[in-house]
């Protein structure tokens, strides 16, 4: 109940300012442009037999997921950093709220906002489906993967936002960390094969890629669940740090 009240307050804050509308607009413009040009090149040039499958795989990995990775830090940077800078964190910490309720409410509200981004992208498969119907089941995997990846990015951003008062530091650090997890295995030739096997287990890119091909693998799901849980746990510890600072 109290957590829900905080979620509603967070959402009211998001939609009071122009940021959400502007960024959703920009995100849909960018992905829409990529949708048009990429699909066009696949259709005109053609890459193998199953054009559509390959198109969706590339579209989800290179555009939807990657653009989300870019915009998530813009929203997560303010989650806790701004409350600390404004001083409103003092209100939250002295209201009858548990730290984990504050954290979960912030996480959930941010996720709700980004679900709007993801919902906007449903337009693209819908357009293709209207022209040429296809089996929609792989999209269950693609969207499950997108939401899990998104939640992971938010959890990571939430943690970094809890470490600083500066939104600039929070957003840039979050972007760097998310990017690092994403490109970890891109240069496979540079490292030994044994290291690549390890890195591919850690990389968000490799786990998301499986979803993008339309496959739901329990290991990939577990990876993202663990990723989210780890960063939420770290966020909670960071919020609780005020309890032991100044202790002997």
């Amino acid at each position, binding site marked *: 109940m109290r957590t829900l009240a905080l979620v509603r*307050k967070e959402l009211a804050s998001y939609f009071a300012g122009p940021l959400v509308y502007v960024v959703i607009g920009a995100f849909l413009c960018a992905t829409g442009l990529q949708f048009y040009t990429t699909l066009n090149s696949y259709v005109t040039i053609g890459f193998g037999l199953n054009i559509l499958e390959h198109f969706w795989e590339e579209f989800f990995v290179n555009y939807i997921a990657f653009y989300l990775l870019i915009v998530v830090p813009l929203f997560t940077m303010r989650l806790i950093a701004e409350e600390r800078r404004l001083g409103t964190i003092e209100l939250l910490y002295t209201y*009858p709220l548990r730290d984990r309720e504050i954290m979960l409410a912030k996480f959930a509200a941010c996720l709700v906002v980004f679900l709007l981004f993801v919902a906007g992208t449903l337009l693209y498969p819908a357009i293709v489906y209207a022209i040429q119907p296809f089996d929609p089941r792989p999209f269950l995997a693609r969207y499950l993967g997108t939401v899990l990846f998104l939640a992971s990015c938010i959890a990571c951003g939430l943690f970094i936002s809890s470490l600083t008062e500066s939104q600039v530091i929070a957003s840039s650090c979050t972007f760097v960390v998310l990017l690092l997890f994403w490109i970890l295995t891109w240069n496979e030739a540079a490292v030994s094969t044994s290291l690549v096997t390890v890195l591919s287990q850690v990389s968000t890119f490799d786990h998301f890629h499986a979803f993008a091909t339309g496959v739901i693998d329990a290991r990939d799901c577990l990876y993202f669940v663990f990723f989210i849980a780890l960063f939420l746990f770290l966020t909670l510890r960071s919020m609780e740090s*005020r309890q032991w600072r100044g202790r002997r």
Partner: protein
Amino acid sequence: MIAVDGLIKDFGRTRAVAGVSFDVAAGEVMGLLGPNGSGKTTIMRILTGFFPPTAGSVAIDGLDVERHPLAVRERIGYLPENVVLYPDLTVMRFLRFCAEVKGVPAAARRARLDEVLAACGLTEVAGKLIGKLSKGYRQRVGIAQAIMHRPRVLILDEPTVGLDPRQIIEIRTLIKALAGSTTVLLSTHILPEVSMTCGRVIIIDYGRIIAEDTALGLTQRVRGSDETRVRVVGPRVDVLAALATIAGIDELREEATTDGAIAVVARSTRGDDLRRDIAALVVGRGWGLVEMRPLAMSLEDLFVRLVRDDRDAAA
């Protein structure tokens, strides 16, 4: 209602609070007085459970702040110093959030919101964004969120700072109206505020209590040392010499004037009859008595003296 025992708080090597103990009875209004940086805010933050003390204990309504943080926070209304609220929410939206989080029952919420808005004079700005409000209105929103759930204990950190005189009077009236039903602890560095709103006062400096008294007791301490300012038109040397002959004057200090009259401040512990003697003397010599008024020692003077004495004793 508030029991503070042996409170110590260190930030790194700095000791912000160095062993503070006091009690506030139910319904009492207690003032926490001290210069900026003396540890007032730190004490209040510990009381509200914002952070724990390094040593010592705090109990609100018999509940230990560290062991029962949620139960304590339900009993407390807190106005932080330099209250900054969510600038992108409207007053109504923010206060509704407070009511929800602080557990005002859904059925009573609407009525309680209207009541608090009216009590804090916010009804006409309820739909405005907090970020667009003036400092005085924002301060009132801060007080509104603190009293929203009818807390048993109200902790106000500098409630009237930055307000204009009319707003200050309004806030003081509000605090006085709460006294009796609510236990109030308020901090300030404005001394008259204490005598106007508080029953009891604690004066702190460098994180330690240097004096604890009732507002009445403080006022009496102030009266203890009496100074009288006299302005006389007459020959300067004669006037000064004559005044010096009056028995009971401990100190005679001449002050500069611009109108040719002689201004003298006489300090004495004798009391009122000093003025009668001065008047008789001046009039008897045929000089002009232009002005005579008691210079009561202000609370500021008392405060400065208490702090100085304390620092001298410590040195």
